[in-house]
């Protein structure tokens, strides 16, 4: 333990603690900007600087470790002057179009300028005039708003291990950009949107599709169906001002009905369907000597990443479409048939935690119904915008149920939104299908939680099935490199592109720290425990769709509608 003095008060903390964290212990919130609790400190913005007795230089509280007897002052004239100067310098090149900005009222720079009482900028206002990037269906970059905090760079390179965003140029000409000033569409970006969550301002954001959805809702000829991804029920409440981790499944359904959606159905239903198809695919691969280990395919960011960086491993990826795309294919075939609606008039919206889902929906393979299977993808943040605009008081809403038949789901489907959830759901079904006996304890604790890589073993009638779970592409890379080296001795691997799984998706509410993601994940496990059915194969709607439409798992119709293929996108 180390004892130091901050602003005249003694505090004892563990060795290695930063001044920032030590100050927090005694109720002092040192202002920060480039700091992010999940990222290694870069200390580039210099907003959190403090005075340390005996040093001429001011030091960044976010990165500077405490030492015994250290005397720190966090609020002196020199400190305030340096902080304000740093913010003033940033503002002088910032567009300051806050009223029209997508991050209005949820912007760290805006909040900081307010907090530090910046009332004038003494330097010439000068914008850099950098071009915006609207090249992908998922992510919009507005580099003029960038304050060069490099949180996106750190996230892209070190958390996700993708590394398409870099600082380029020097001094005042420094910009954060894909290599050689390319657009995102021209580089190997997974479109995961983790950079959006990292950005303190509006320099990176999701492509906003709300207008297209408003138009569809206003069009009387359209039958507008929405599917709600598993993770959304644990995050839309948060987006609407509730505590992180508040489970709001019923209110979500009610809210969507009030916005005017004709049918509110559930991606959890196709999550259950995924388990049936994918579980059978796994058993078949094991039985018939297929390519193992098999890797999950629910996460479109992971798929795109795999197509760019691991084209040699594509045969390992399950051919199952993601639940979003299974839903899309079925809503314009099975549901259209059942409801007697011309699929041409169905407008299919999905509510997703994810920016890569926007890209996935536009993939040319995703038209098995004869139409684009999913017409529009909204993230939690976009839905939040629509609900606020519509004046829907979210916390006052009643609890309502999803519509039949594709709204009936199980707890297994719900936990898809947390890392390890797909694996756990699959194991519940695979165990019972393979052994024919009932699983005692449904909860596979080994695959839950926020450890980067998790492993488990399950005994299926004498065969020990080894599984692994990785979330965040940085962790996925570790497993994929093992696989390449022939050292991944597993049967089944779950990969989720985003840290924390879909509760931490790039379309989720901001801020999205690991602490918050943990709370969201726990909400999904709560949802699971509250469900009448907790195993995908027990879902009566699933039994029904096989009986009425699909016939059998991995059958011809399944192949036509529910399975897909992958394409190498390697640049080299």
């Amino acid at each position, binding site marked *: 333990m180390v004892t130091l003095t901050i602003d005249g008060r003694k505090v004892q903390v563990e060795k290695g603690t930063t001044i920032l964290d030590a100050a927090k212990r005694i109720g002092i919130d040192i202002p920060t900007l480039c700091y992010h609790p999940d990222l290694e400190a870069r*200390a580039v913005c*210099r907003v959190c600087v403090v005075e340390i007795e005996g040093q001429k230089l001011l030091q960044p509280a976010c990165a500077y470790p405490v030492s015994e007897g250290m005397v720190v002052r966090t609020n002196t004239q020199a400190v305030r002057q340096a902080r304000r100067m740093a913010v003033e*310098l940033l503002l002088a090149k910032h567009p300051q179009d806050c009223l029209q900005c997508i991050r209005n009222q949820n912007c760290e720079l805006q909040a900081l300028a307010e907090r530090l009482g910046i009332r004038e900028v003494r*330097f010439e206002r000068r914008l850099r005039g950098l071009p915006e990037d609207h090249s992908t269906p998922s992510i919009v970059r507005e580099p003029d708003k960038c304050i*060069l905090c490099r949180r996106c760079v750190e996230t892209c390179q070190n958390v996700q291990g993708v590394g398409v965003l870099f600082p380029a140029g020097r*001094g*005042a000409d*420094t910009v954060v950009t894909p290599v050689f000033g390319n657009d995102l569409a021209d580089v190997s970006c997974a479109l995961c949107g983790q950079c959006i969550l990292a950005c303190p301002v509006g320099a990176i954001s999701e492509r906003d599709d709300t207008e297209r959805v408003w138009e569809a809702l206003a069009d009387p000829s359209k039958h507008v169906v929405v599917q709600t991804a598993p993770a959304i029920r644990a995050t839309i409440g948060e987006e609407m001002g509730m505590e992180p981790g508040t489970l709001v499944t019923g209110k979500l359904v009610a809210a969507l009905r009030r916005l005017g959606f004709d049918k509110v159905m559930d991606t959890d239903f196709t999550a259950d369907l995924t388990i049936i198809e994918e579980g059978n695919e796994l058993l078949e691969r094991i039985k018939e000597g297929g390519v193992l280990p098999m890797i999950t395919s629910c996460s479109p960011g992971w798929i795109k990443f795999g197509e760019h960086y691991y084209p040699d491993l594509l045969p390992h990826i399950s051919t199952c479409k993601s639940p979003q795309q299974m839903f899309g294919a079925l809503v314009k075939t099975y549901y259209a048939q059942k409801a007697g609606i011309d699929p041409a008039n169905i407008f299919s919206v999905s509510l997703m935690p994810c920016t890569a889902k926007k890209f996935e929906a536009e993939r040319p393979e995703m038209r098995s119904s004869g139409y684009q299977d999913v017409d529009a993808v909204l993230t939690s943040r976009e839905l939040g915008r629509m609900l606020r605009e519509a004046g829907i008081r979210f916390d006052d809403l009643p609890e309502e149920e999803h519509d039949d038949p594709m709204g009936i789901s199980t707890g297994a489907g719900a936990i898809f939104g947390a890392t390890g959830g797909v694996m756990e759901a699959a194991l519940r079904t695979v165990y019972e299908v393979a052994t024919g006996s009932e699983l005692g304890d449904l909860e596979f604790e080994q695959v839950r939680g926020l450890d980067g890589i998790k492993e488990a073993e399950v005994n299926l009638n004498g065969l020990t099935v080894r599984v692994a779970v990785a979330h965040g592409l940085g962790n996925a890379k570790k497993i994929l490199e093992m696989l390449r080296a022939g050292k991944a001795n597993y049967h089944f691997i779950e990969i989720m592109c985003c840290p924390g799984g879909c509760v931490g998706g790039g379309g989720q509410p901001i801020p999205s720290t690991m602490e918050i993601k943990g709370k969201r994940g726990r909400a999904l496990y709560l949802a699971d425990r509250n469900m009448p059915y907790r195993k995908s194969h027990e879902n009566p709607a699933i039994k029904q769709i096989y009986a009425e439409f699909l016939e059998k798992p991995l059958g011809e119709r399944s192949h036509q509608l529910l399975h897909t293929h992958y394409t190498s996108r390697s640049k080299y």
Partner: protein
Amino acid sequence: MEFYRSHVLVCGGTPCVLGGCKAVRDALIGEIHRQGLSREIKVVETGCLGPCDLGPVIVVYPEGTFYGPVKVEDVPLIVEEHLLKGRVVDRLIARERPAEKEIVKYEAPSYLGPQKRIVLRNCGLIDPESVEEYIGRDGYAALGRCLSQMKPGEVIDLVKRSGLVGRGGAAFPTGLKWEFTAKADADQKYILCNADEGEPGTFKDRLILEGDPHSIIEGMAIAGYAVGADKGFVYIRGEYVISIERMQKAIDQARRLGLLGENIFGSGFGFDIEIRKGAGAYVCGEETALIESIEGGRGEPRIKPPYPGTHGLWGKPTVVNNVETLANIPPIILNGPEWFRGFGTERCPGTKVFTLTGDINNKGLIEVPMGITLRQVIYEIGGGIPGGREFKMAQTGGTSGGCLPRELLDVPMDYFSLAEAGSALGSGALLIMDDSHCIVDIARCFMKFFRHESCGKCTPCREGTDRLYEIMDMVSSGRGRAQDIDLMTELAQVMQRASLCGLGQAAPVPVLTMLKYFRDEFEAHIADRTCPTGTCGL
């Protein structure tokens, strides 16, 4: 070994190379051959001799006659008259300005004056491409003594007692730096020689490398022995083509003689060195940016702590020493700390190598004891200001150093005295400016340099250098605002205190000293829209 009755040393420093010394050398060899003197007279290309603006310069030994500038067409005369007939060619003798005083003998006290050559002990005297000549001047004796008679701790102790402080500008005690790394527990440690000399007006490291590369190898190997490192890198500015060539040759020679490699002198200690070339970023002279660059990353500084001494290259304990610091090591080992403390001041023992540039009669490379006054350097060695103009200011320490006015001419030139005057000894560049220069214009040029060289990582430096340049540009073009002096002062102070690395911390120093000592010139530009010197177009 061959015996020659005469040696002709041809300066092969970059300024003389640019002046045509290679052709002079070839002409000398050809002419000596033609006269049948090849077995009596040897031509040696050396490192820098010092008076760079007189080049190409040559010295004829044993007389020590100093000729310069020498043209190819002068060569037959020198060979015929001096080398064959033994008559000095008066017309070609190098002449110092302003009195056109002849430098008859290169090493004569009248020429060197207050200079003392420790670092430059071999520069200009030996063929830098000959390890034998280095050994002939006690080269590698210090390494031998360390490996055969001293424990690593004793080497560190000796360097600590010498009081040597880093010559790259930060003046950190070298022995202490070594001790940190020696104490760090690790499977691998590194010695880095910082030869990324980027400070405008500084070329001392280049000329040391060109003139005496083995002294750097020896210094690094001693450092490696002291701290327990078996691997070193010399990070040399890519533009320093001759330095790189000569350093590589020196490394090859040392390897061949077993002075680098495994089990040096049978001691069991092994050490080897590789060269890494810089790609032109000024910031890579900052030690952590240099490390990033060697690792293959973007040249940007890291947060300190942790310091390189414990977490350096590839996370391993690493000593980063400047070229000049390392060149001091062998003589300190051989002559002892008390000898070293006999030069310079109590707080800053030893000498300092300076490069004299600007409005001064004798430009070039000098080495003087620490603590000599600015006045002595300018008037006794530099020969004063040319063209009958008045001294206006001297910038010490390169572009990131302070600008000192006439009233401070008697400030002692050592790290601490200059810091107290708001400037820095820095890398040893000394830029002299006469009264024809406009302060605002000079400040604008300096800030343009820093605006270009800031790496862009931290806010105060990235935006601050941009804004200081912008404001200087407005002031110098008559668009200054009344509040600009205060705004620049505040901004410069924040940059100094809050920037991430030495670049941003030092970039505002010239501006702050100029605002302090020449405030009236800024005020004239802003309030009266006039330039008192009439040079900046207002």
